[in-house]
């Protein structure tokens, strides 16, 4: 049942910013892939970590749980982390769970 492009991640490094573009379905099956890809990026405290969700089609508590651990790790390292281009359906789940204020800066709301 392997679908090659069910979930995709692409990382772009600019000066001072590391942008991770996520697309497809982030569920229990793809969670390990995201966790592994994010682990080294979370440690790069000299630049801002940005997650771009423009092409993300699905998330549930598994993915939100990973975001919670990234928020906590970045906070502990005193390093900036933001999430941008959140699709409305996914924003609804972020608002319901209460994670939104930890993901976006007030200017974006």
């Amino acid at each position, binding site marked *: *049942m*392997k*679908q090659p492009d*069910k979930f995709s991640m692409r990382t772009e490094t600019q000066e001072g910013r590391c942008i991770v573009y996520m697309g497809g*379905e982030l*569920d*229990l*099956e793809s*969670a390990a892939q995201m966790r592994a890809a994010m682990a080294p990026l979370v440690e790069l405290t000299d630049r801002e970590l940005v997650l771009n969700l423009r092409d993300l089609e*699905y998330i*549930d*508590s*598994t993915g*939100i*749980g990973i975001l*919670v*651990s990234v*928020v*906590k790790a970045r*906070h502990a390292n005193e390093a900036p982390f933001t999430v941008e281009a959140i699709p409305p*359906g996914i924003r609804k*789940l972020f608002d*319901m*769970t*209460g*994670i939104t204020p*930890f993901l976006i800066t007030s200017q974006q709301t």
Partner: protein
Amino acid sequence: MKANGEIVTLQVPAEAEYIDLVRLTLYGIASKIGFSYEEIEDMKVAVSEACNNVVLHAYSDAPNGRASERNPGHRMEIRFIRLNDALSIIVKDEGRSFDADAAARKAEPLHGKSVGELEAGGLGLYLMQALMDQVEVHSETGTEVVMTKRLAKSGELA
């Protein structure tokens, strides 16, 4: 699909890679019945959360541990029941029964917490409750989660 109580049953291995198949089946059934795109998205997340719990917890020996190896006998059954004005989805396993009351107490969102207090545990059950009209958890031999979403009256435009 006019009669009441029409049932579609799907039985799959209790593995993460089958959960998208459950979502696809739900999508087909719910759109046939006439649920809106947004309602179907809500149900997709709720049913996935119930399946996540089966895959992560039902067949593991250690508390909160993950099943260490695949076992073809570990399965989950998803029943879609068309009611008069609603869809009930039942997710059932034959694994470890689980303390529904303790889980319900943990099922809370992150509102008003500080970064240090953030905890991902409990979000799954919380989302199920928030996204469906009714959620019941029965735990005797294995666990059965019954989730119901009501169909908005026809002619009522969202």
